[in-house]
């Protein structure tokens, strides 16, 4: 009985693509190895000061971070366009749009707010006024 219901569940899950995790040993291992590499490179760039340009280092950190997030999404969270009939992906895209607006918008607005503040009110200025 229990064997039967177990087999039925598995069958059921596969049929409907519930967004359940159906990873294999190899897919987890590939994801893990890619993650280790993608983590090690940015740490190495910063700790050993490999690149002279700070902007280039920052770009590499952010770029590799985005790639690693995609790797985790695919190999660990088993995201694909078909899970839950596409609703998972739709919710993810919607969330990413909101995240992009919130983060980019905050940085943009606050950066301009800072640069448009009239005098540079740092400590030296305050002292020279006094």
């Amino acid at each position, binding site marked *: 009985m229990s064997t039967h219901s177990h087999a039925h569940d598995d069958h059921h899950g596969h049929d409907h693509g519930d967004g359940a995790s159906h990873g*294999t040993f190899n897919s987890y291992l590939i994801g893990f190895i890619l993650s280790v590499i993608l983590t090690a490179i940015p740490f190495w760039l910063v700790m050993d000061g490999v690149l002279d340009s700070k902007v280039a280092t920052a770009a590499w950190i952010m770029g590799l971070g985005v790639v690693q997030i995609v790797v985790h999404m695919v190999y660990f969270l088993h995201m694909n366009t078909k899970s839950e009939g596409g609703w998972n992906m739709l919710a993810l895209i919607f969330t990413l749009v909101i995240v992009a607006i919130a983060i980019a918008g905050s940085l943009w607005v606050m950066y301009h707010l800072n640069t448009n503040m009239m005098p540079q009110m740092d400590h030296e200025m305050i002292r020279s006024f006094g």
Partner: protein
Amino acid sequence: MTMANTTASQTEAPVFYLKEEHHPQNGTMLGFWLYLMSDCLIFAILFATHGVLGRNYAAGPAPVDLFDLELVAINTSMLLFSSITYGFAMLAMEKGSIKGTQTWLAITGLFGIAFVGLELYEFHHLWYIGATPMRSGFLSSFYTLVATHGLHVTFGIIWLVTLMVQVAKRGLIVENKRRLMCLSLFWHFLDVIWIGVFSVVYLLGVLG
């Protein structure tokens, strides 16, 4: 009268073109995914706050003075190891092995505890040298973002222990499998957030 009756019965029997067979058996996994997306928004706001306040040192210590990247690298590897060991727990679960599931869950939990422990050690050290949340805008946003993530991991560990007790008592029944799948999403999601934390807060912070 007859006319009216006919119209009424016609409107009462609408035809819905629903295809029931395309609905998943239950909405738990989708619902949990939506929860994770809302959690993602919380972290997005905290990242945005840190992006705005992250350079406001108030003549206090900057990331390069405070952060020990070797410690952060060890911490990151703890979380990465816990991700693959949770994956192995799920594989054991799909095979129907209670012992395998429990063993891998326990190892995952230990990695999680190591992660939280190292983070608390770091916080304690920072606090000890005077880098408290009250010191500057940078430290306020740093503690809020990193501690929110740490708190998530802590609750993940509590959840994991709860599920280990459930599996020990009831075995790998359908309900427990569903719960383990939810925790799987939660755990891997926290690892994704940590990628953002170590990239933006620690590495970009130390870079200056």
